[in-house]
């Protein structure tokens, strides 16, 4: 038998000898609240708008991009080729291939990871990662019973059979089912799941409201400073994220009534102010090899260094639904020889303010780090002044699959501004007990 020609790097060691994948830039449309200005816009419409802006910003008209990857969480079955249809409706070369991806709220970040890996392997020179979601134009489906009858009707061979099948329809079959944020295996909504975790980690209402306040103030300051000028294209009259409340205060946030965790023994702490609203929006990120960017005179903001996906057993209560990042980050750190404190910026997706705080508390807990992560001790705390410094989902809104692209473009630009070698950590939690985490470094 011939000896294998290639050597596989030992597990847990970053692959050596690969070239870099860099973030050139990003473009998104402002995020709207559900039922707002994008109420009639479809996922394809919004992804197209974000893509058009990216093409215009980087002069990509007619360009054959290596591959486009994008996805949506709430997806119509007709959108099975959402990313490819967005390409065909854009000024990009129609010879640009595309694929759809779906990993709940981690969709956007995972498209960046997948395309970066292809670039690092030399399979493609350029890639556009993206994500979009509309809760306003969400797919509504007929009940399973009605669907079975309609499918049986379509298979009927004679008009008589068709009529006989149609006679099986009952009024109770006609109630439509809209998508929910409920976990199929537990029946609990994401908010109720987070409420369990919030209570388990004893996160206070005040701490959550402070995270929400910082998110709004940081996002407002970033807009004021013009930070988003080259990251965003206005759409349908919206020039800023509609959920942003620049003038919010701890008093205002403190006056809101709790909405999740009301049936638990502990007082409920999660409100509409410290939870993300249902949102509409889209984002894109342009990724490339150094050579491809240099040939076109394009900037390189940051390198996509490495990424890790995690998942937890929330079904049996072993971990909270949104705690996979707490497990994935230490694995990513170990592989890259880094500590939790080796970062200049942290982007922890604010699904809920409490999600951020629970993950931080887990890393600060000696017990959790020893017993659950198998580490010698706690990972420790982070410098909070480096966390979500340009605002996050609580202020910007959270169109599920669009959040990853928003975070990657924002962080890449911020790292480039900090200077070479500065490093950023991303953690995005997702339905199904998922989490995807990544390291970016200023190029």
């Amino acid at each position, binding site marked *: 038998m011939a000896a294998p020609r290639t050597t596989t790097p030992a597990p847990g060691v970053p692959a050596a000898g690969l070239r870099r994948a860099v973030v050139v830039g990003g473009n998104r449309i402002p995020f709207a609240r559900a039922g707002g200005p994008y109420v009639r816009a479809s996922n394809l419409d919004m992804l197209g708008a974000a893509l058009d802006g990216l093409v215009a910003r980087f002069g990509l008209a007619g360009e054959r991009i290596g591959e486009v990857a994008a996805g949506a969480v709430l997806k119509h079955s007709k959108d099975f080729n959402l990313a490819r249809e967005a390409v065909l409706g854009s000024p990009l070369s129609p010879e640009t291939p595309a694929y759809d991806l779906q990993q709940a709220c981690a969709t956007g970040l995972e498209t960046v990871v997948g395309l970066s890996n292809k670039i690092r392997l030399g399979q493609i020179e350029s890639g556009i990662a993206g994500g979009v979601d509309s809760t306003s134009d969400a797919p509504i489906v007929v009940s399973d019973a009605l669907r079975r009858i309609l499918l049986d009707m379509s298979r009927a061979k004679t008009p008589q059979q068709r009529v006989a099948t149609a006679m099986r329809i009952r009024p*109770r079959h006609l109630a439509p089912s809209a998508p929910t944020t409920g*976990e199929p*295996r*537990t*029946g609990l909504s994401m908010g109720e799941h987070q409420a*369990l975790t919030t209570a*388990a980690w004893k996160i206070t209402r005040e701490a959550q409201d402070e995270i929400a306040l910082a998110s709004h103030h940081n996002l407002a300051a970033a807009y004021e400073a013009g930070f988003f000028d080259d990251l965003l294209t206005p759409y349908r009259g919206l020039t800023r994220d509609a959920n942003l409340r620049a003038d919010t205060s701890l008093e205002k946030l403190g006056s809101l009534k709790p909405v999740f965790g009301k049936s638990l023994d502990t007082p409920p702490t999660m409100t509409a102010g410290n939870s993300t609203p249902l949102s509409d929006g889209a984002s894109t990120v342009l990724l490339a090899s150094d050579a491809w960017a240099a040939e076109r005179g394009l900037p390189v903001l940051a390198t996509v260094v490495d990424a890790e996906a995690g998942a937890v057993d929330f079904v*049996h209560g072993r971990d909270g639904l949104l705690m996979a990042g707490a497990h994935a980050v230490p694995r990513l750190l170990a592989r890259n020889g880094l500590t939790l404190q080796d970062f200049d910026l942290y982007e922890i997706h604010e699904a809920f303010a409490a999600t951020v705080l629970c993950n931080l508390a887990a890393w600060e807990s000696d017990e959790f780090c020893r017993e659950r992560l198998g580490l010698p001790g706690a990972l420790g705390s982070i410098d909070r002044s480096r966390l979500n410094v340009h605002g996050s989902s609580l202020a910007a809104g959270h169109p599920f699959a669009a959040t990853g692209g928003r975070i990657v473009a924002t962080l890449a630009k911020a790292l480039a501004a900090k200077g070479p070698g500065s490093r950023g950590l991303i953690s995005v939690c997702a339905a199904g007990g998922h989490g995807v985490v990544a390291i970016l470094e200023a190029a």
Partner: protein
Amino acid sequence: MRAPRRVVELAAMPPLARTYVKGLSTSAVAMMAPRRPVGPDEVPAVDLLVRDVAADVERLTAYQHLVGEPAGDLLPAGFVHVLAFPLQTALMIRQDFPLPLLGMVHLANRVEQRRPVPLGSLLDVQVGARDLRAHRAGTTVDLVGEVRVDGETVWTGVSTYLARGVRLAGGTAPAAERRAAWTPPTPTGEWRLPADVGRRYAAVSGDRNPIHTSSLAAKAFGFPRTIAHGMYTAARALADVGPAARGEAYRWDVEFAAPVLIPGTAAVRVSPGEHGHEFVAWNARKGKKHLEGRVTPLG
């Protein structure tokens, strides 16, 4: 002296619909008649056997979808119970069965799934009644089932039922255990049971006991409205434990405390325990337990 136990082989599974009509009428008669105490040896000394029972694929799929099992080609332990159920009923409507079928309360169920049972297997299903015991509220009986494939026992099940108000002659019920105050644990999930779940489980299981499908019938038996099949809730708990945690061979024990009214919601906790996974479902508003049990891998 007890007569030796005899095995009566039936040509096919008795159709449940007709069985229920018969059960209904004999039970109605029994309910009118003055209650006489039942003798401890009065269970029929007969096991019923049907050979070469095959699962219907459409019914299997409907069952798997309803209880949340992955729709693979292995029969869930609860589905094997469903396949054996007509023989339980056939035994309980026999003239020589001492307890009335209707109004019988399912107290507990113990199943051993010893080997995976693939779809297409021909099952020899045998069921017998055993062990009349005095209970503080009446008399209990065990319906014991055994399923064999090619002569090898792949599944055993013991369903304990209570006939309320029927006294066991010479029997003394164990004193009611003083129930320690029960504090509901932190839930891991929630079951939302729609109004039609009784009808749907009746359709896939054949258990058309009207207390699960008609609120009138449920009221006649003292419930405020229709109640979910106990084995439906137990099957959901088994599905919640999931294939990774239970393995291919496992014990599945459940004790029913109070029925779940439908439509309704139950809080659930399914979590790793000492020897496997434990589950408990309860009414979150009243803090009252519906059922609890455990799934233990057989090693």
